[in-house]
C-alpha cells in the first residue's frame, strides 16, 4: 500500500498533499423487543486525498482505489481553483510509525452467533424486568479500522483503531406515559468490555419503570449539581466547542473574546482535552493529519490558557499544533475536534454541594447536548430535586441550558474525584457525526442554571 500511495503523491503539483486510506470491518446485532431486528457485517474500503495550494484546499474522496493517481490530480486541481493566498501549516516532524492494536478479546475472532448470544441475554433481562416494560432496543456494534496515512513531507503512518460498544434502552409504558432508561458502554478495546453487563441492563429497565411515576421537572432557575457522567458532556458543550480554533482563527471578534489569559470561568474550574488517555474513545496516538496527540489545558483555574488546533490554525494563530484534526471517515477531511474532554478535580464532596441548597436539582447521567457556541443545552437522563439539603423526589425531562460566558462563572464547587465513564455516543460537527469522543469529570455545582420545563 505504501508504495502505491507514495507513487500517487508524486502526481500532485500542490505545496502539500496527503492520502489517507481506510479499511473498516464492522458487525452489528440489534434487538428490538422480543425479536432480533438486524444482524450483519460489512466491509468498507475508501480514501481521501487532501491537497493545499496557495492557501486553498482541494479534497477528493473515493471508494475505487484503482484511480488513485487521478484522484490526486483532481484534489490538486480543486486546490488550484481555491488558492488565492499563501499556504500555511505549522511545522511538525514527519512521523513514520506503525501501530498495532492489541485487544484482550479480539472481536473479529468472535463469531456473530456469540455476539448475538451476549446481546440477547441483556435484551431478555430488560424485557423480563417488569411487566411495565413494553419494549427494548439493545444494539451491539464493533468496527476495526485500519488506516494508511502518507503525506508529501515524508510521514507514513499505519494505525489500527478498534471500537466496540453496546447501547441498551428500555421503554416502559403506562397508558400514554412512555419513559426510557438507557445504559451504554463503549471503548477502543476488545469484546470483554461488552461482556458481564447484566447489571447495566437491569439498571436501564429499572430506570424506565421508575420514571413512569416521576413528575417532569418544574422549569425555572436552580442551583444544579451534576454527576461525573454529566460533567464531561457539560465541559464538551459548554466550553470545548468554543476552544476549537477553526471557529476562532479567522474571526477577529471571537479572537478578542477568546484571548489567552482572559478569565472565562470561576477559579475553581480547569478543563482539559487529552487524546492520550488509554482506553477512552477519543484516544489515538496521532490525529488524522499525522500530528501526535497530547494533553491540552483549555482552562486552568478559570483562565483561558489554550485551544485545539489543526496544523493550519496553529500556524495562523502562532500557536503549537495540538493533534486535534480528526475525521470520522475517509469520506471526510479532518477538522478540529475534541478527543477526551474533562473537568479537573477540585476539593468538594457531594455532601458539601447539597448541604446548603434549599431548593435545587441534582442532574444525573447524560442523554446529550448541543451548542451554538454561546448558548448550549445538555440533557440529563433523570434527576432528583434537592430540598433543604437533602435529595428529594425523582424528576424526569431534565434539560439544562446555559450561556458560555455566564454559566462557567457560576460554578462554585468542584468534586474531588474525576471519573471517566465508558459510555457510548459521539459528537457531531459540520456533518461529521458521530465521532467517538471521551468525557470525564467530578461532581460539579453550578448556580443559577436555567432548567426547561413547565412552571
Amino acid at each position, binding site marked *: 500500500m505504501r508504495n502505491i500511495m507514495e507513487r500517487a503523491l508524486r502526481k500532485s503539483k500542490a505545496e502539500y498533499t496527503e492520502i489517507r486510506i481506510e479499511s473498516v470491518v464492522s458487525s452489528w446485532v440489534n434487538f428490538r423487543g422480543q*425479536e432480533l431486528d438486524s444482524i450483519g457485517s460489512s466491509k468498507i474500503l475508501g480514501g481521501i486525498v487532501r491537497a493545499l495550494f496557495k492557501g486553498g484546499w482541494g479534497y477528493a474522496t473515493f*471508494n475505487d482505489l484503482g484511480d488513485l493517481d487521478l484522484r490526486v490530480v483532481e484534489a490538486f486541481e*480543486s486546490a488550484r481553483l*481555491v488558492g488565492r493566498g499563501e499556504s500555511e501549516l505549522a511545522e511538525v516532524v514527519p512521523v513514520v510509525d506503525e501501530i498495532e492494536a492489541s485487544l484482550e478479546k479480539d472481536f473479529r475472532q468472535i463469531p456473530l*452467533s456469540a455476539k448475538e448470544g451476549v446481546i440477547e441475554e441483556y435484551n431478555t433481562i430488560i424485557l423480563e424486568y417488569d411487566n411495565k416494560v413494553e419494549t427494548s432496543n439493545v444494539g451491539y456494534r464493533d468496527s476495526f479500522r485500519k488506516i494508511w496515512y502518507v503525506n508529501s513531507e515524508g510521514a507514513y503512518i499505519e494505525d489500527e483503531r478498534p471500537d466496540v460498544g453496546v447501547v441498551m434502552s428500555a421503554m416502559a409504558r403506562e397508558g400514554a406515559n412512555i419513559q426510557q432508561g438507557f445504559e451504554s458502554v463503549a471503548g477502543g478495546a476488545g469484546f470483554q468490555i461488552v461482556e458481564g453487563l447484566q447489571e447495566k441492563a437491569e439498571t436501564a429497565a429499572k430506570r424506565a419503570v421508575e420514571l413512569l411515576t416521576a413528575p417532569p421537572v418544574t422549569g425555572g432557575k436552580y442551583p444544579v449539581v451534576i454527576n461525573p457522567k454529566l460533567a464531561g458532556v457539560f465541559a464538551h458543550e459548554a466550553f470545548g466547542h468554543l476552544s476549537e480554533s477553526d471557529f476562532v482563527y*479567522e474571526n477577529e471578534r471571537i479572537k478578542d473574546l477568546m484571548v489567552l489569559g482572559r478569565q472565562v470561568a470561576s477559579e475553581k474550574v480547569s478543563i482539559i482535552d487529552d487524546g492520550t488517555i488509554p482506553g477512552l474513545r477519543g484516544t489515538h496516538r496521532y490525529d488524522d493529519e499525522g500530528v501526535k496527540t497530547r494533553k491540552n489545558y483549555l482552562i486552568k483555574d478559570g483562565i483561558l490558557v489554550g485551544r485545539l488546533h489543526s496544523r493550519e490554525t496553529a500556524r495562523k494563530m502562532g500557536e503549537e499544533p495540538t493533534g486535534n484534526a480528526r475525521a470520522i471517515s475517509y469520506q471526510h477531511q479532518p477538522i478540529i475536534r475534541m478527543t477526551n474532554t474533562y473537568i479537573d478535580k477540585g476539593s468538594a464532596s457531594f455532601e458539601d454541594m447539597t448541604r446548603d441548597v434549599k431548593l435545587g436539582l441534582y442532574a444525573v447521567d447524560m442523554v446529550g447536548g448541543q451548542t451554538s457556541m*454561546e448558548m448550549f443545552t445538555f440533557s440529563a437522563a433523570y434527576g432528583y430535586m434537592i430540598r433543604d439539603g437533602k435529595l428529594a423526589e425523582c424528576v424526569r425531562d431534565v434539560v439544562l441550558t446555559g450561556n458560555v*460566558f455566564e454559566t462557567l462563572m457560576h460554578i462554585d464547587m468542584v468534586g474531588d474525584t474525576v471519573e471517566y465513564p465508558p459510555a457510548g455516543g459521539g459528537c457531531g460537527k459540520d456533518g461529521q457525526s458521530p465521532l467517538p469522543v471521551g468525557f470525564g469529570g467530578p461532581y460539579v455545582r453550578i448556580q443559577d442554571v436555567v432548567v426547561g420545563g413547565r412552571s
Partner: protein
Amino acid sequence: MAVDQLIEKAMKKAQGAQASLVQSETTNVSFENDKLKFVKSSQSTAMSIKVIVNGKIGSSHTTDIDDVDGVVERALEAAAFGSPAHFEFPGPQKAREVAVYDSAVLPVTKEQMVDIGEEMMTLVKEYNQDILLSAGVSKSVGKREFANSAGAKHVSEGTSFSAGIQGQLVRGTDILWAGDSFGWKKREIDHVAIARKTIKLFRMAEKIVPIDSGGLPVIFAPEGVNVLLLALNLGLNGKNVFLGSSPLAGKVGERIADRRFSIIDDPLIDYASASGRFDGEGVPHQTTPLVEDGILKSFLYDLDTAGRAGSKTTGNGVGCNPTNLVINGGDTPYEDMIKSTKEGLIVYDVLGLGQGNPISGEFSVNVQLGYKIENGIVVGRVKDVMLAGNTYEALRDIVAIGDKAEWAGGSLIVPPIQIGTLSVVGG
C-alpha cells in the same frame, strides 16, 4: 449487472435475495469566514445485499466492488442465526413516474458553483459587513441498480443540487447565527432568495428583547415545525407502533390533532429530496395520508414490519420512516397570525431537539433563533430561553395554520403553525 451477479450467487444457498448497487459523484464548494475554503469531489460506490435462508434474514454491505463473493458470504453467515423474516420479496410491480433526474445538474462547473456562493455572500455583506459568512453549494449525480430474486428489477438515475449560507454576528459576548439553505433534485434554486431570507432573519434580530417566564402562544415558522414533527415521526413509525412504544398505537380513526391539521407522506413530488419511484425494498412508492382533518389515518410500514403487524407496506422501507412530508396550508395569513398576537414567540431554530424523551412527545429546547411579538409586532430576538411542551398536546392546541405551505428543506412542505400555549422559561 452487478446486482444480478449478487442475486445469482446468493440464491445458490438462499431462498430469497435482494441486492442494490449505488454509485455517485458529488462536488461541493465551501466558503468559510468570508472566503472560499475548499472544493471537494467524492466518488462513491456501495453494494448491499439481504438474503433469506430458512426463513431468516441476513445482510451485508461493502464499498469494494471486487468484494462480490465476500459480501454474499457475510450475508449468508448472518442469516444462519438472523432475524425471522415476516415477508417475501415482492415481484415486479408498476410504479408511478416521478421526476428525480435533472439533466441541468451534471454540466454545472465548479466555477459556476463558486459564483453562486459568492453572489449569496455579496448580498448579505451589502446588508451588514460585520456578518461573518460561510456558504456551500453542492451537486450530485447518482445511479441506483436494484434487483431481487422475485424478479423485481429497476435502475434509477438521480441528481441533487443545494445551496446555503450561514452568517454569524458577534456583538460583545452575544453570538447570533442565522442562515438559510435549500436542496432538492433539481438545478433550479433561487440562491438570491436564500440570501434575502438570511438578511431578513438578521434584520428581525437587530434588537435583543427580554422575555418573562410563563405560558405564551408560540408560532412555529416553517423552518421550526420540525420541533413538532420529531415526536410525530416517531409516533407514526409502524415499527414503534407494533412494539408498543408509540403513544399513537391503537388510535387510528381517533382525533389526535386540531381538525385543521392534515399531514401526508408523499414520495411522488417531482424533484423533492426523498422522492423516487420505489422504496429501498423495491416496493412502488405511494402517497399515504397520515393525519386527515385531525383524525389519525395511517402509520408507515416497511415489508417486514407490515408482516409482523398484519398490515400492508406503505412503501417506507426499510425502517418505516417518512419520505417527504406535507402539511396542508390553513386559512390564516402569516401576517395576521402575528398581528393578532398580543404577546408571543416565533420559533425558527432550536438547540437540543430530541434530547429529552421525544417518543412521549415531550420536548424541552433552547430557542436558538426566535423572536418576540408584542402587540402584533415583531419587536426583536430572544435568547437564553427554554421552550417546553408536549407535541401531542400542542397538536390539539393549534390556534392557527398559515395559509401558505412552504418548502422547509427539500423534503418538507409546511405552513407556519401557531400553538395556543407553551411553557417559556427566560434566562
